[in-house]
């Protein structure tokens, strides 16, 4: 399998404080990779570096081409959907307008229509609330909206930053089921940042564990799950 | 929070500056002395604005209105009530200060942007309000007051020291200098003590300032009052400092030889924000709302 996304010795930070001290990782095409680590380890920063939200050195390649010096808008247009920490919902707009924003760059109207149908199948509640302001959605519904919007972008890679944050366990399970099914049916690669290590390991094929800006451990998720010492020292269960 | 470190005051430097400012009008022309008086007057207004904007962080675009108020109070008192012009300065300053303080109360409720907007509107609107009671303010014509001559005591003293006769321009210069020094000293003290620190804290973060026990509302209003006090002083001096001889006989008060658009009179629109924009109501227009 060829790597869709490759990070090579990426260093990044905010102004004078450096956060990532040389992170290297790979997301193969069509796979689910999870990125775990304690609070403040630099998971969000890694995702931000990929979509150009922070300055970085080293190299980041997507589908073989470097993302160096590309502005966020152009990176996204190449096929990366980033659902940021905090979901990035446009609360000034309606649910439908948020969805339209996801699809606004696409020319294939017929396909967009199909994707809408699929999205509403996954998240029927969004169909009910189409005309309402996105600010009236609950946290979980907003997470669904963010995922749905990302799907409508028809990306090759989705970056998901803690999709389970603040959700009830039931909802978390169904959201992860949907992520799995999205990955299976539309061959979208997923880079998943999570606090909930158990569920992320379940879902992903490969896992990277960040510790203060460095990759401390990585390997096949099934192996890490079985490794008592890794679980104890990095994943805390 | 940062500790404010102040260098030991260099009194000799202050003395040199003061002596320079005292001495040099005697060696320059009377015209230049009046130009310097203008500079001092603007300096006073700017000191006031600095207290408001620089210290308490409230942007006022309408300070010209406060200056106009000071100018009109002085002019009306001196012209219609024949009050001694020197006395009109503190009266104008204090009245304007009180009005500014009162203005500061509603200003508290405005966000910085809205405050800029409201004071901008005030600046544009004030000429039309001022010219309204024209028995009092002289309408568009304004009030014509003669620039005061130095009192005999001062004039004699000046003659004994320099051997020349003190002109009214030089006298106004000294009045402006005295006011500027006094107000500078006041602002200096204010900035080094509690009010100055409190205002800076407010500028840097209102919530944090309030949390550390600063009376935010009180100091913000106070800053408005003090700032208006300065503007009123400047306006009052401004009204007194224009010699009618200079533009006398010209058809329009807006065409002074120096190219300045502010007239030689207290005139609506005069110095309230940008002078060339003042409108004269005799301009033909077909609607009432122009």
């Amino acid at each position, binding site marked *: 399998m060829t790597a869709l996304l490759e990070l090579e010795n990426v260093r990044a930070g905010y102004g004078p404080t450096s956060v990532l001290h040389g992170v290297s990782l790979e997301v193969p095409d069509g796979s689910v990779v999870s990125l775990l680590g304690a609070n403040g380890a630099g998971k969000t920063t890694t995702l931000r570096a990929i*979509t150009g939200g922070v300055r970085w050195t080293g190299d980041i390649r997507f589908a073989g081409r470097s993302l160096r010096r590309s502005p966020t808008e152009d990176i996204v247009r190449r096929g990366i959907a980033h659902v940021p920490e905090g979901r990035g919902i446009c609360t000034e707009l309606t649910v439908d307008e948020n969805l339209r924003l996801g699809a606004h760059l696409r020319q294939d109207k017929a396909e967009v229509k199909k994707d809408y149908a699929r999205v509403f199948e996954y998240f029927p509640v969004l169909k009910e609330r189409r005309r309402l302001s996105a600010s009236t959605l609950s946290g979980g519904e907003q997470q669904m909206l963010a995922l749905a919007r990302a799907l409508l972008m028809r990306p090759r890679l989705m970056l998901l930053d803690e999709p389970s944050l603040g959700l009830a366990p039931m909802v978390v399970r169904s959201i992860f089921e949907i992520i799995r099914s999205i990955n299976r049916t539309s061959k979208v690669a997923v880079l998943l940042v999570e606090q909930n290590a158990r569920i992320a390991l379940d879902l992903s094929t490969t896992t990277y564990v960040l510790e203060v800006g460095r990759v401390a451990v990585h390997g096949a998720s099934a192996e890490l799950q079985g490794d008592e010492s890794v679980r104890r020292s990095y994943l805390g269960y | 929070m940062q500790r404010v470190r102040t260098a030991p005051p260099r009194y000799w430097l202050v003395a040199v500056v003061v002596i320079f400012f005292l001495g040099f009008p005697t060696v320059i022309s009377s015209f230049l002395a009046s130009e310097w008086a203008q500079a001092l007057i603007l300096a006073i207004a700017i000191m006031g604005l600095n207290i408001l904007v620089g210290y308490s962080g409230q942007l006022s675009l309408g300070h010209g209105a406060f200056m106009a108020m000071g100018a009109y109070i002085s002019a009306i008192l001196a012209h219609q009530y024949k009050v001694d012009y020197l006395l009109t300065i503190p009266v104008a300053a204090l009245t304007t200060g009180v009005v500014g303080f009162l203005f500061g109360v*509603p200003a508290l409720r405005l966000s910085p942007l809205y405050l800029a907007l409201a004071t901008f509107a005030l600046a544009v609107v004030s000429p039309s309000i001022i010219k309204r009671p024209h028995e009092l303010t002289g309408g568009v014509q304004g009030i014509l007051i003669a620039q005061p001559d130095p009192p005999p005591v001062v004039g004699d003293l000046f003659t004994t020291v320099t051997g020349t006769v003190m002109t009214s321009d030089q006298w106004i210069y000294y009045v402006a200098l005295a006011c500027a020094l006094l107000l500078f000293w006041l602002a200096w003290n204010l900035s080094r003590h509690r009010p100055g620190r409190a205002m800076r804290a407010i500028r840097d973060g209102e919530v944090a300032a309030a949390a550390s026990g600063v009376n935010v509302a009180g100091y913000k209003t106070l800053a408005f009052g003090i700032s208006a006090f300065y503007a009123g002083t400047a306006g009052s001096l401004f009204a007194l400092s224009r010699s009618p001889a200079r533009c006398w006989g010209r058809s329009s008060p807006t065409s002074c030889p120096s190219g300045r658009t502010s007239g030689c009179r207290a005139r609506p629109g005069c110095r309230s924000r940008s002078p060339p924009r003042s409108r004269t109501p005799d301009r033909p227009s077909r609607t009432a709302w122009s």
Partner: protein
Amino acid sequence: MQEFLQLVVSGIATGAIFASLALALVLIYNAMGLVNFAQGEMAMFAAFIAYTLINHGMSFWIAFPVTMVLAFGGGILIQRIVIKPVERAPVLTLVIITLGLATLVNGFAGFIWGYVPRYFGSPFSSDSIDLGGVFLNERDLGVIGVSGLVLLAVYLLLQHTTVGLTLRAAAHHPEASRLLGVHVSWMLALGWGLASAVGAVSGMMVAPILLLEPNMMQTIIIYAFAAAVLGGIESPLGAVVGGLVVGVVINLAGAYIPNAGDLQLAFGLGIIILVLILKPNGLFGRAATRRV
């Protein structure tokens, strides 16, 4: 009663002019949280351009859209050259910059065209239409019609096109929009262009009523501020409603309050201050959240 109705209609015509300028203010406020103090001067400049075009033999109805297009381009240029380099500056710095821009545009217009007021012919006849005893001035109706069409076009653009959608998204949620592939910086430029074009309409509508000169918009901008504030400064609909209300109120006050002539501008100030103190979110604004 008839006189009252006539006053209301001509107040609406006046208000439509305020509404265009207020809408321009709102567009820029939404895009960057800034009140553009140069909006009026930009509109004045556009009116001068229309005047020049008409003087060169163009008909008003061709000069009108041409000026709007030029104003649109001018707005984009101003955003790119003047505003973009200081985009991240504190809002009060930006306010000072737009004030400087106002002075600059004013001086530039004065430099080119001088300060002598010029006659700008109205495209509408000055006849009146008799509607059951109520005489309506064709000029008023024309101004209402033209402004109404422009406002409607802006509404359709913002609410029912993809560009409008991305424009709104970029204005309110720049970070999130960027992640959706919206070129936020260009959207801001587009917002300035749109505001400039809409403002130009107010300039071209007001020039035949007042006389054309560089200070023409100085009072109009105060009424536009009043309208925008009344409507809640961030609501395009509010700006339009606010404009109409201010226009009608000013017109009625001018007619029914004795000797109110000069003080109409003071009414504008009064509206601004009253709204800001009593109802800072205006008629259509959302409750502002206080940022720490």
